[in-house]
């Protein structure tokens, strides 16, 4: 077979200033701009992901990198969802098989963790929750909710160990509280403090800098008495922005500005790592 060393058709795309922002794959203006991590050529997220899928379907073993369609540089991931603070990486070798990709909800929840604690304090009556000792009542939505949160925070699919650990810690806390309840009456505040410190201690090795925010969130979810969907929609209502806005794109530019204002309150992504960087 003849081999021609001609740079992959770049000349037909790069010239002409009005086409500068066109995706080299679909030739239309780039939608959900994403970059290859080494050469930084940009594409629509969907287009480059599709191309990686095609390339990997042609080889028998798992691909670890993909050649840039424009310059043939090897790249191991796509950088996307860059919003000024944070970005996501879509790894070539996670793409097809057992890779774990956050769902839309998990991604959204991760963003919720950037907000300050006590954000919804006026919506749910947390102190009443403790006064009424509602912690002792089973919450059938809790486990599924907890699993999702852990998956989002740890960016891992298999969180069983941590999940059962935390639930175990919580159960034994409840048992102790119940027993104590029979003997002596403790203030709701003490219970609340106790609960949070026990949970934080249990979660810290896994969640590190995110722990305290996480424990607040656990408390809030339990206090809300809502199921996962209702709790999420509460958040969405209050935050006014959601992960969907990127998909919706230009369709709702009017509400975009409003959302932008709210978004600026969100704390940068990197602060989550502050404590565990040594």
């Amino acid at each position, binding site marked *: *077979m*003849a*081999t*021609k060393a*001609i740079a*992959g*058709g*770049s*000349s*037909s*795309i790069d010239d002409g200033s009005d086409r500068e922002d066109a995706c*080299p*794959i*679909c*030739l*239309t203006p780039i939608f959900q701009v994403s970059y290859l991590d080494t050469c930084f050529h940009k594409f629509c997220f969907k*287009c480059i992901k*599709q*191309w990686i899928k*095609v390339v990997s379907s*042609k080889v028998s073993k798992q691909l670890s990198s993909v*050649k840039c*369609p*424009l310059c*043939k540089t090897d790249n191991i991931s796509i950088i996307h969802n860059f919003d000024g603070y944070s970005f996501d990486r879509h790894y070539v070798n996670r793409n097809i098989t057992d890779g774990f990709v956050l769902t839309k909800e998990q991604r959204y929840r991760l963003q919720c963790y950037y907000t300050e604690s006590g954000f919804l304090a006026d919506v749910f009556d947390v102190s009443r929750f403790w006064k009424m000792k509602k912690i002792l009542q089973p919450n059938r939505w809790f486990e599924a909710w907890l699993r999702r949160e852990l998956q989002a925070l740890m960016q891992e699919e298999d969180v069983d160990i941590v999940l059962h650990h935390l639930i175990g810690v919580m159960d034994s806390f409840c048992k102790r509280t119940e027993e104590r309840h029979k003997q002596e009456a403790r203030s709701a505040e003490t219970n609340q403090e106790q609960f949070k410190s026990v949970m934080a201690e249990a979660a810290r090795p896994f969640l590190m800098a995110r722990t305290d925010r996480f424990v607040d969130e656990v408390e809030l979810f339990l206090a809300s008495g809502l199921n996962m969907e209702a709790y999420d929609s509460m958040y969405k209502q209050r935050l006014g922005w959601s992960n969907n806005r990127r998909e919706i794109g230009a369709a709702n530019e009017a509400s975009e500005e409003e959302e932008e204002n709210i978004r600026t309150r969100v704390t940068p992504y990197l602060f989550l790592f502050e404590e565990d960087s040594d």
Partner: protein
Amino acid sequence: MQPSRARLFKEYKEVQREKVADPDIQLVCDDTNIFKWTALIKGPSETPYEGGVFQLAFAVPEPYPLQPPQVRFLTKIFHPNVHFKTGEICLDILKNAWSPAWTLQSVCRAIIALMAHPEPDSPLNCDSGNLLRSGDVRGFNSMARMYTRLAAMPKKG
């Protein structure tokens, strides 16, 4: 609209705009089917194909641009990497080295480059390849020029 259709339409518009920019390539889309294209390319100068106009047929597959278009010469050509009977072209970018950043236009350019720089070590046309491999450049050139005259030049008179 299918992505391939949208992209071909984009290329069509681009071709209309670039017509003047590249006088060596004339890409035409079938009137009724955007997946069928033909191209007229000029034989590159200082090659035995100079002065000839060669017709190419493009069949674009549904998954384009994730899959390369199928291209073949409709005009007979004596070239090591082109099948003499079918016009099939042996070119890596049309097979495993395809990249979705190529366009029909840039594929035409690649084919012109292939005409100027044959690869006799991976021949589809063995006679042509053997002439070059045995070092008979003169023999190759005269055969190629003869077929260019016979098949790729407008008949005079």
